[in-house]
């Protein structure tokens, strides 16, 4: 029979030690955030009201209309059409860089291109376009992954029936990948809700008593509101910014949880 030697025992001890060490590290990573969330709820909970919740981010919705079609088209191209060559690599590099460019540089681009060059002024349109380009990689990557998860055999079966490429994509690939695409879109909405820097100079204002009437108006955004209330307005009630932060973080976490739950549900009932 196997008996434990001294070496075995010490190895086991080392393993246990590292297991606990890494567990503690994971815990320490998560703990501060839980503390912070509790503080936000504790301090900001009192100022929440129904009224307060209705300052919704308009920019995100318009951005969505632009980036979803382009993003999905790009993902279909990369997953279904593109060959594995230098050109596709360049597209991939461009996507990676688009995702990695600092948000303030996106803001500069928004100012230079949309506000000044195309003469949109600081408006919802300019802010939305900036946000749309910034969040494009989120949509592309999520969509491409879900398209690639559809087994090749599905496509082959369809082609054998004489279907064109587009018929195959529309009738077979997209219906099987739609869940992943939706998850990506929810994530994008969440990103746009939280972004501040790209919209500061392109279309959002700290306060306007009116709801925007058209895409050339300026609008309020929760994230910018938090920034200004926290740093530049003297004499606001102490709890107010905590309330704004709480609403913002609540919206973002809610949307992300929704997309995660959605993903898990669909993964569970996947047919293949």
């Amino acid at each position, binding site marked *: 029979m196997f008996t434990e030697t001294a070496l075995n025992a010490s*190895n086991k001890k080392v393993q246990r030690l*590292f*297991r606990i060490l*890494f*567990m503690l590290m*994971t815990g320490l*990573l*998560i703990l501060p*955030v839980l503390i*912070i969330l509790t*503080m936000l709820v504790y301090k900001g909970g009192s100022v929440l009201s129904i009224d307060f919740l209705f300052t919704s981010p308009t920019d995100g919705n318009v951005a969505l209309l632009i980036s979803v079609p382009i993003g*999905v*088209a*790009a*993902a*279909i*191209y990369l997953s279904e*059409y*593109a060959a594995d060559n230098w050109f596709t690599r360049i*597209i991939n590099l*461009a*996507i*990676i*860089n*688009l995702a*990695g*460019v*600092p*948000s*303030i*540089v996106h*803001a*500069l*681009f928004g100012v*230079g*291109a949309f506000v*000044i060059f195309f003469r949109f002024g600081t408006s919802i349109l300019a802010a939305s376009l900036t946000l749309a*380009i910034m969040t494009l*990689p989120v949509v*592309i990557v999520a969509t491409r992954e879900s398209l690639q998860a559809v087994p090749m055999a599905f496509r082959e079966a369809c082609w054998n029936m004489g279907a*064109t*490429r*587009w018929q195959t994509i529309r009738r077979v690939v997209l219906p099987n990948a739609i869940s992943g695409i939706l998850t990506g879109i929810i994530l994008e909405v969440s*990103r746009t809700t*939280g972004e*501040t*820097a790209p919209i*500061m*100079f392109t279309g959002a204002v700290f306060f306007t008593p009116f709801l925007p009437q058209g895409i050339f108006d300026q609008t309020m955004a929760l994230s910018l509101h*938090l*920034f200004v209330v926290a740093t530049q307005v003297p004499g606001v009630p102490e709890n107010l*910014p*905590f309330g704004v*932060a709480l609403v*913002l*973080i609540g919206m*973002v976490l809610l949307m*992300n*949880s929704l997309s*995660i739950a959605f993903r898990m549900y669909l993964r569970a009932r996947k047919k293949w």
Partner: protein
Amino acid sequence: MDTDSAIDFDRRNLDWYLDKLVQVLVFIGGISAIVFIVGIFVFITKEGLGFIINTMDVKEFFLSPYWEPSDEDAPEYGILALVAGTASVTGLALLVSIPFSLGAAVYIGEFASGKTREFLKVLVELLAAIPSVVWGFIGLTLMNPLIIQLFDVPVGLNVLNAGIILGLMTAPIMTSIAEDALKAVPDRYREAAEAMGATRWQVIYKVVLPAAKNGLLGAVLLGIGRGFGETMAVLMATGHAVNIPHSIFDPVRALTATIAAELGETAVGSDHYQALFTIGIFLFLITFVINMTADLIVRGVRRG
């Protein structure tokens, strides 16, 4: 037209044309990413070019620690102190986030199993989603008094504050990329080592970590790029003083935060305005290099 074909077999019906049309449309979508990244570079360069050509003194720009663009007589545009601010904050953030996120990735990927692992992964994903302006707010309102109390310093908005905030921000992103890199190591490597009688830790230390080395390096690089480009959190938590820091309790100012704070106050086309765009070009190029390097390293793993 193929007139001499024996049988009349023309595939060009409506669906055929539709197929071609879609092919063109998705191709346009595909190249949009290239168009946008080039567009970003072109437009920020267009706005900043006047400064680079006419006003900029290359030596002053990179080596002078004085950023005094609103001085009427002799405005000075030196970004050294801003670079030092960004570097010190990002450096401290990495000291916080690298060990913790690699440790967390190893725990989640190699030790935890089943429900615990799923739960932790979801939690990390949610942490990564917290907006940066909220982090900045936390630095401003919660960390600030805490640092003043703990270390008995007059101001709590400094390198330490921003570094910790940025570290907490980048850690979840680095954790999930590092976890992916660990997952990319084939299970048969682990099985082979375990069959030789190695403990879980020996497997991780001798087999998994060396095999995932490049992926982990890529994760760290992407974390650096992330920290470097972060704007709102460092704007709110650094104290915003142009200063080369001598200790972690000195307030500093970051490159990104300078743009965010000053762009609204400058006249379009002025030297100051163009100088801010020049900083933008600088940021763009640096993150471009970091992202390319990270991609090359990670891709190297997949191929090898």
